[in-house]
């Protein structure tokens, strides 16, 4: 996983609720067997028209939001399909942080597997951040260590995050490697279960 510490980047507003992972990365891009190269499909139907031409109004197509690194979006971001292609596509596009009032469970987990920081703020904070993002200055600072988002106006929003998740993200730790340090515990568990539930062993 890519570590996340501190980020200075352009903030792009996407003021819609319930942005689902089908919208983040539509199905035609799920046929890949790779993790890379998904930026081309990010928000495809929002970014491009039926002929594949960029829609000039869509926020990520507008010159002032070029190279955006942070998105601020409406409630329940990332609902729907479990596809990890959604965080992969966001990351591949250069987005390292999404701010919303709430995230869907699986998407939220997937973010932490990839070093994409999901930041939860209160509804009025998200609304004022959204307003600022629409203004003339779009630069924000996201500091994971300090747990703050500093808006273009200098207003600072504190966010909460699970301490263990924060630690792993700061260091970019590999979850499988961590779990395998407990392989002996898994062995013991399996031996006990094999005795208690023998019918599962010869399935």
């Amino acid at each position, binding site marked *: 996983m890519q570590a996340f510490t501190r980020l200075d980047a352009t903030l792009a507003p996407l003021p819609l609720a319930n942005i689902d992972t089908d919208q983040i990365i539509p199905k035609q891009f799920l046929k*890949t067997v790779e*993790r890379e190269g998904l930026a081309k499909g990010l928000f495809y*139907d929002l970014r491009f028209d039926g002929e594949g031409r960029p829609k000039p109004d869509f926020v990520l197509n507008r010159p002032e939001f070029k190279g955006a690194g942070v998105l601020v979006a409406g409630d329940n971001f990332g609902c729907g399909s*479990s596809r990890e292609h959604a965080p992969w596509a966001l990351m591949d596009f250069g987005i390292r942080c999404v701010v919303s009032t709430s995230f869907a469970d*699986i998407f939220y*987990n997937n973010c932490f597997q990839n070093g994409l920081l999901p930041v939860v703020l209160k*509804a009025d904070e998200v609304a004022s951040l959204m307003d600022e993002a629409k203004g003339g200055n779009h630069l924000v600072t996201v500091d994971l260590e300090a747990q703050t988002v500093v808006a273009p106006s200098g207003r600072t929003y504190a966010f909460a995050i699970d301490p263990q998740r924060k630690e792993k993200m700061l260091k970019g730790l590999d979850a*499988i490697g*961590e779990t395998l340090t407990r392989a002996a515990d*898994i062995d013991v568990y399996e031996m006990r279960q094999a005795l208690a539930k023998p019918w599962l062993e010869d399935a």
Partner: protein
Amino acid sequence: MRSMPGKTLYDKIWDGHVVTEQDGEAILYIDLHLIHEVTTPQAFAGLRASHRPVRRPDRTLAVADHNVPTEGQALGIGAVADEEARLQLQTLERNVKEHGIEFFPMGDIRNGIVHVVGPEQGRTQPGMTIVCGDSHTSTHGAFGALAHGIGTSEVEHVLATQTLRQKKARNFRVNIEGEPIPGVGAKDYALAVIGEIGTAGGTGYVIEYAGSAIRALSMEGRMTLCNLTIEAGARAGLVAPDETTFDYLRGRPSAPKGGAWEMALSYWKTFFSDDDAAWDREITLDAGKIAPLVTWGTSPEDVLAVTDRVPDPESFDTPGKRASAVQALEYMGLTAGQPISDAKVDVVFIGSCTNSRIEDLRAAAKIAEGRKVASHVRAMVVPGSGLVRAQAEDEGLDEIFLAAGFEWREPGCSMCLAMNPDKVPPGQRCASTSNRNFEGRQGRAGRTHLMSPVMAAAAAIAGHIADVRDYL
């Protein structure tokens, strides 16, 4: 001294599967890992790169479902025209062979949608932990198993360790009491719950369904309900196992036999919520007050009774919701205030892991029998597995559908997400028994209305969204 509070069904499954804790997370043992072609290639590639084996191939089962065409499956991979889909299917085949994982390839009668196959084979059992790189894994909760979707990194984690790192969710009980009116069933219950609590209403929770209406549901109905639990944002749905569950499992290929059956049965019977268990949230719905439901918008919470009118975006309480509703109406080609039953349909899809089991097909066939699909409608039935298809053919359901003008297809996810050639064309309107009405879900610019199998069959006959009660 106060005694310990009772445990919920979720608490019991959780407690029995915690291997250990590390950094504030539980390392949860996974009893069954289901895999398919779309969300696994990068996981196997990761294993290969780090020279890690699959810890328990025997606890892993693979199917090909998302990409497969729904005709010509006997030709095998040759039936797949799309080159990328073919590569993905071949990659799965290579990976399962390399790691010794059981696999039902396309064309095998046991193949089908992953969430239809697991229960049908008897692999899904009460008290288990089950995961799959697919959000509708919640389906298996119908058996009183803790089942949920995971991402590809977690698929790799489960392949390598047979465990998942998890934090515990909270307990939410949804009671549905009483008897439904004719024409109303599990799909309507599920839509009613989502409409009530919203698509984020279950976030952070595991939902257990209880009450007399749930006890009265068949396993198929319970699976429909748990399947849609993810659309309410909950991590998983659960129904406590009972005689209905055990009857369903008895004799299935992977269900325990003989003495092992008795042993398993007494274990399974320990999985229920104690009377004094504590619930973080609870709601109760009256089954008798639920009408046949359809969705009007592009989120599964956009639910209304078939007799209702399309809502006005101004009636929503937040600017975000109003903006989403305006966009949804435009996308769906609907006007605020119009009766939803005015909406003319072009396509009808009966299938998906929500509603493609034998009972769903029987119910739809009953509506279709002796009637004709409206001439402007393309209607298709896609059974959930090869075994469902065979059973339906034994019962003559295929003939009923064909005589009415439905297409009778081969199993797979099909038009539920349109990764295969079955798509709703741009601008067309589809009455669908699937689970997601998101923009573009069933094909670019396609318009989806979610509903039950009987409602979809009625829409096919009427040529517009219709009240199934007129066809009973």
